[in-house]
């Protein structure tokens, strides 16, 4: 099960909307997943997720302690590059699932 975190500043508008869209992308790709919301200020310390999607760019200050990959979901809000985002999300998700299966996670 792919564990995702979607983070934004306030945890209201963007997390709700981006989480829904991320979920739809993964459902279409038949990737089982669970999504938890978070605030951007919290993501540095998250340890129990496989992938973090943030709405907006993030500085180097937002490094995650467990080296969980962080990708920007801004494309889902602006519409610019949303297809590329969907492709990247699915290919990363599949790579993570593969790694888990072969015990490399």
């Amino acid at each position, binding site marked *: 099960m792919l564990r995702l975190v979607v983070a934004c*500043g*306030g945890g*209201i*508008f963007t997390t709700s*909307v981006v989480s829904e*869209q991320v979920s739809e992308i993964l459902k279409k790709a038949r990737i089982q997943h669970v999504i938890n919301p978070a605030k951007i200020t919290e993501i540095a310390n998250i340890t129990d997720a496989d992938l973090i999607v943030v709405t907006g*760019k993030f500085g180097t200050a937002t490094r995650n302690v467990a080296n969980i990959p962080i990708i920007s979901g801004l494309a889902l*809000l*602006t*519409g610019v590059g949303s297809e590329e985002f969907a492709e990247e999300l699915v290919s990363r998700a599949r790579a993570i699932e593969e790694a888990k299966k072969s015990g490399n996670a």
Partner: protein
Amino acid sequence: MGPLNVATDVEALSVLARRMVELGYVKSTYPEAVIARERVFPTGLPTKEFGVAVPHCDVVHVEIPTIALAKLARPVEFGLMGDDGTKVLVQLVIMLAIKDPETQIDVLKRIALMIRDPDMLKRISSAADSEEVIRVLREMLDC
């Protein structure tokens, strides 16, 4: 009411927010809260058409869930969502007073879809008056 003629993001937020207080949609704490939040977590989005800002703040300041929309007479700089210092020239401000994100998720999704749709944005920016803007919004939001 014609396009809003302001020079800064704070002015734009202030005018919209104060109007919402007057109408009883939000508490008197809302204007300060939405301006403060925008400073820390800006909401400028560079869509395919023109910059759109989606300011909002904590649900505790909201009485009645509301969307306030303002076309800006001249583009105003907002911070890019994600806070890395980049600015977005915004022409449309969609202020969201959300009370319960879970039950209001459908409206939020439709707003997001609208922002991603250059045709919808063009229709709003070329609308002749507020009635037309409201018609376009209602059509998109199905309400």
